């Protein structure tokens, strides 16, 4: 018996599957809204009920928070200072690292502790003088300093105070050596650690002596409170009384050791240099509170002593250590800090100006100022922390020379640039805003070699940008800044200065100043290539502009904007181009032809700057995505031919971007559909779009996308009534399917996707009329042969595809097809081949071929579970497609037996398949 196709009524099937509708009395959303309103009312009632206790709790919590804030503010200052000191030391070590270069040091400076055990001091000095200078590395130098420090500690622990003191003097003398300037910060950090240790040890010893008797009996335990609170109690008089009472009691002891500790240290250091004496006294500074009533007198003397240090580097670092010790024990006040800063200014004055009165920069001066910067920064920070605590920031400014009247400022408004820089850095934002004009005048007058004036201008702009409220002075301020920046006649300096003021211009809508800025940039950059630093500054300015404006249309009309873009190159230009593309594509369609042209050029520049050939796709994915999105967003409206030309230009310009190919094809298909909706007169344009898609698709590398786009384009052709074009596109897809080779890059997901696309193609073939000249089933046979001979398709995929082909053949055999093309010109096969016996015979013969291959594929499967599922799937397909004659029944039973053998008799799928087969038997 021959195979026969089962008759199906798609209309009846559709009606049976159609869900019944019932009219509702109320709209579902309205009832939901009503219930929500009720819930809201209930919640509101509850809220009203609990409102007062929550308010009460909030009030209590806020009160507690206020108290905690007050406590934190007191401790925060101390902790901040400790952190600042630690960070300063870390900065010094990082900025001036220890190098491996060999350096020239006199070895006598770092003698071992055993050398000091020589009986005669004079002899040892003579010996050291006779020794020649030796070359040692910095690491060796540091190791020996650490050895000395350990010696100090061990001597102190062994109660050998004299040796400990002598070693401390030796270590402190190292700070006098400025032979290697870059190494000085490292030595300073190490030596100050030692001095802090020494000071702590002396303090603990004196405290111990005051608390304990000779026999070890506790006389009176001093309260274990922090130094800050001790200072506070001393000011109130209570601690002072306690301390001196202890000393009175201690004086009654027969020994006078207490009175000899500090004088002993001081007497031993009389013969030392002023430098070592200053450092040692600073180390034991807190101990003076045990002897005198007014420790501030010592500070005054120390300030005078430090002024005697002539070398600017050592002088500055000594002041830095002095500020640190003051801060640590709460002796510091703004007055002393102001004195330090003034002294620093006096010390730096001879360095700034030569004997002949000229101020110029040299390498040595540059190095000196770089070494001095951290110290100045720390002192300024301490000053303003103290000033905020004392609420005396304005007073500090007046003391330092700010806020004077015009008459006085005209004579003495010059300040050291480096001091002015760090002063400006630490000023509060509101003061920067209020004193902006005065600060600008000082910056203009302070033009020396200690610090770059350009950076001071820049810092002023950055600080003003931080402020929230702006005043009317800003326009005149920026005018003066632009004039000052223009005088440098250097694009790099100009860009660095104005970069800090761009945000101010944009926030305050100063269009005229912005235009002036852009004009100056173009004039300074004319006929020259920009350096990398200039490129970076220009990039910063352009990105600020782009970030401020919402639309690209607002940026393009700016004066010289395009010219400035042309000046840029390299990574800076790429970054700006990416921002331009992102900005242009985020606000919907791009309709302006000028904007399209500009963004096309930007995309081309970005594409040329990126190496798409050698670099992997993951590295340039962002660039690809931006350009693809740009092409997708372009819309020429009614000028469809111009749009198609644009797509062709993009394909030529960006042929290395794989993501773009898909976008181009989809855009072309969209254009074709738009033209079809416009009318029949655009049929040639539709053909052009189809040709564009047809020649672009072969360059797409992904198999799934390749096939999907072929199908999409074929659907568009069918919608346009172009049967020949749809046939060609489908055949191209099938030919591509035949050429797909199983490679490592082809994943299982891709294989499943390709199978889905082929099933979709089978669904599309229901609508495509057969070609009697080449064979009605030409396309279907090609799909079948491609699937059968493919190397990428697994057996499971083959079974899936063969079942789809069986379903298609069954559908084509019906008198009425389930669906047709939207275009009425496309006539279905049920009308074309009505009553044609050869058509029916061909369908039957194809079915036989597919059926045999289907059974073979199932038998070849090695996995039991897969084979069983495949058998059931095939059985269901056959039973729904064919009439249940004897041959078909035999096939179905055999498939069922195969499934039972693989899955077991109790499988649910088998049970449902049996039921459906029984229904088929009764028909």
């Amino acid at each position, binding site marked *: 018996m021959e195979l026969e196709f089962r008759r199906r009524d798609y209309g009846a099937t559709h009606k049976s599957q159609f869900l019944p509708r019932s009219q509702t009395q109320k709209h579902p959303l309205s009832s939901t809204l009503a219930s929500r309103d009720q819930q809201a009312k209930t919640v509101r009632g509850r809220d009203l009920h609990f409102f007062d206790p929550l308010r009460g709790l909030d009030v209590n919590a806020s009160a507690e928070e206020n108290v905690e804030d007050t406590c934190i503010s007191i401790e925060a200052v101390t902790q901040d200072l400790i952190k600042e000191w630690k960070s300063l030391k870390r900065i010094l070590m990082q900025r001036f690292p220890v190098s491996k270069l060999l350096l020239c040091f006199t070895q006598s400076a770092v003698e071992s502790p055993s050398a000091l055990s020589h009986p005669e001091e004079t002899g040892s000095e003579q010996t050291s003088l006779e020794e020649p200078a030796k070359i040692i590395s910095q690491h060796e130098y540091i190791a020996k300093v650490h050895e000395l420090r350990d010696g100090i500690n061990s001597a102190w622990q062994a109660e050998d105070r004299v040796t400990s003191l002598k070693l401390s003097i030796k270590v402190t003398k190292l700070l006098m050596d400025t032979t290697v300037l870059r190494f000085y910060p490292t030595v300073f950090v190490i030596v100050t650690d030692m001095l802090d240790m020494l000071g702590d040890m002396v303090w603990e010893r004196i405290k111990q002596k005051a608390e304990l008797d000779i026999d070890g009996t506790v006389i009176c335990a001093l309260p274990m409170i922090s130094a800050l609170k001790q200072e506070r109690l001393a000011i109130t008089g209570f601690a002072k009384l306690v301390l001196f009472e202890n000393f009175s009691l201690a004086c009654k002891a027969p020994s006078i050791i207490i009175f000899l500790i500090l004088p002993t240290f001081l007497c031993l250091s009389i013969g030392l240099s002023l430098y070592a004496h200053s450092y040692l006294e600073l180390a034991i500074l807190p101990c003076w509170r045990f002897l005198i009533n007014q420790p501030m007198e010592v500070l005054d003397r120390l300030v005078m002593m430090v002024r005697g240090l002539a070398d600017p580097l050592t002088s500055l670092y000594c002041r830095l250590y002095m500020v640190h010790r003051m801060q640590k024990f709460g002796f510091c006040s703004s007055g002393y800090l102001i004195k330090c800063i003034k002294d620093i200014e006096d010390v730096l004055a001879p360095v700034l100006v030569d004997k002949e009165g000229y101020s110029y920069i040299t390498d040595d001066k540059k190095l000196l100022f770089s070494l001095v910067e951290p110290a100045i920064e720390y002192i300024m920070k301490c000053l303003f922390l103290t000033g905020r605590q004392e609420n005396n920031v304005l007073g500090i400014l007046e003391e330092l020379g700010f806020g004077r009247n015009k008459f006085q400022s005209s004579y003495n408004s010059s300040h050291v640039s480096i001091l002015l820089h760090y002063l400006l850095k630490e000023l509060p934002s509101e003061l920067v805003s209020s004193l902006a004009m005065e600060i600008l005048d000082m910056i203009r007058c302070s033009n020396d070699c200690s610090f770059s004036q350009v950076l001071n201008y820049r810092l002023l702009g950055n600080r003003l940008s931080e402020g929230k409220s702006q005043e009317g002075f800003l326009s005149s301020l920026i005018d003066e800044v632009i004039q000052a920046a223009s005088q440098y006649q250097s694009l790099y300096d100009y860009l660095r200065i104005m970069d800090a003021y761009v945000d101010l211009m944009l926030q305050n809508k100063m269009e005229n100043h912005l235009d002036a800025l852009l004009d100056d940039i173009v004039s300074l950059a004319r006929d020259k290539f920009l350096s990398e630093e200039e490129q970076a500054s220009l990039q910063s300015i352009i990105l600020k502009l782009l970030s401020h404006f919402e639309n690209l249309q607002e940026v393009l009309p700016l004066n010289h904007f*395009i*010219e400035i873009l*042309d000046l840029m190159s390299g990574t800076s230009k790429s970054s700006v181009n990416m921002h331009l593309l992102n900005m242009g594509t985020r606000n919907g369609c791009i309709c*302006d*032809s*000028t904007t399209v*042209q*500009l963004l096309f*050029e930007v995309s081309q520049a970005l594409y040329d700057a990126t190496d798409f*050939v050698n670099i992997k796709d993951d590295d340039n994915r962002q660039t690809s995505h931006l350009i693809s999105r740009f092409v997708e967003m372009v819309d020429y409206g009614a000028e469809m031919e111009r749009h198609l030309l644009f797509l*062709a230009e993009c*394909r*030529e310009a960006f*042929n290395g971007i794989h993501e773009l190919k898909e976008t181009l094809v989809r855009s072309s298909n969209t254009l074709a559909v738009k033209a079809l909706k416009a009318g029949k007169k655009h049929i*040639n*344009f539709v*053909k*052009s779009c*189809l*040709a*564009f898609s047809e*020649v*672009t698709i072969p360059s797409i590398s992904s198999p799934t996308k390749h096939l999907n786009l072929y199908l999409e384009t074929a659907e568009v052709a069918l919608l346009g009534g*172009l*049967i*020949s*074009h749809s*046939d060609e596109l489908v055949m191209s897809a099938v030919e591509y399917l035949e050429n797909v080779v199983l490679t490592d890059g082809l994943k299982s997901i891709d294989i499943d996707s390709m199978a889905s696309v082929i099933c979709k193609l089978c669904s599309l073939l229901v609508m495509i*009329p057969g*070609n*009697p*000249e080449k064979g009605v089933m030409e396309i279907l046979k090609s799909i079948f042969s491609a699937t059968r001979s493919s190397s990428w398709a697994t057996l499971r995929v083959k079974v899936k595809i063969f079942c789809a082909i069986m379903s298609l053949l069954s559908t084509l055999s019906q008198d009425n097809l389930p669906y047709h093309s939207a275009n009425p010109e496309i*006539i279905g096969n049920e*009308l*074309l*081949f*009505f*009553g*044609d016996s050869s058509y029916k015979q061909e369908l039957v013969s194809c079915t036989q071929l597919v059926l045999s291959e289907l059974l073979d594929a199932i038998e070849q499967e090695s996995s039991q579970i897969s084979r069983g599922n495949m058998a059931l799937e095939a059985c269901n397909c056959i039973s729904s497609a064919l009439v249940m004659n004897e041959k078909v029944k035999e096939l179905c039973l055999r498939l069922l037996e195969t499934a039972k053998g693989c899955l077991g008799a109790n499988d649910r799928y088998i049970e449902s398949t049996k039921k459906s087969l029984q229904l088929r038997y009764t028909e």
Partner: protein
Amino acid sequence: MEKDDNSDKVCLSVKEKYTSEQPEEMVTNLKASVRELSVKVKEQNQRKCDAKDKLQQLRERISKEVVDVSVQELIPLLRSLKEFVKEESEVRSRCNVKRSALEDAVHDLEERAGKGLDGEIQEEDLDGLLVVSLDNLTSAKKELGATLREIVSLKRQIDDVPCQSELLQYERRFSELNVCIQEKLQQTRKLYATYNALLEIKDLMLKETSLLNSIGSQFQDVIGTPAGRVKLIDSMEGVMKGIQQKIGKIQLGLQEEQRLRDASKEKYIAAAAEQRKCYTVLRAYQEECTKNERLRSHISAMNEHL
């Protein structure tokens, strides 16, 4: 027209009765229809008499009134009379034909009633009619299918001929692919040039290495004798001359490359300037177009106002 409509209705009613009722009743119905036809003939005769009466009245009127006016009124009446006469003859002949057909049908039915084969005859006739209709429908569909196949075939042939715009797309793609091939060729040439340059560098380094090794191996022996020293100096001078010549050649090549680079740079600068000019012109053109549209809209508004 009314007569035609009435006759169509009579035919339809006769068909309906013929298909649904029994032969005896059908005979009765046929007789009734004959009576109806007779009544209609009488009505037509009555209308004929009315027309004659009207004509007589007109003739009397003509004798009383003016001849010209009467003649003008008489001509259309005469024409209508002729038409009515024609219609009468046509209706009469049609009625006679229908009457004879119906009488024949009645006669057939009477014969069938006498024979007693009502059911079988009816079913056979109905099946025959149905088969004939289905055959007609099938043949019509087959003809339609053949015609549609021809149409689709012609449509395919027409679509297979590419239009000018399609060819432009193919041409453009071919040129793009050619450019890609050229770029690939340039890249390949560049890589080959790099390889050749590196190979040349390798050769020079090998020569330098061999020279240094030679000097190192022979220096101690040569430096001891005056003749050896002179020979060494001469050899070094020869090497120096060779190196100088080599450097000269390379310098020439370098100058040529620099010249090409400068020319390319100048071209780039000129192209960039041209691009800026084009952008400026395009922008100005767009602004002018916008202004033109605004003015045109203003003019149209003014015209409407006038």
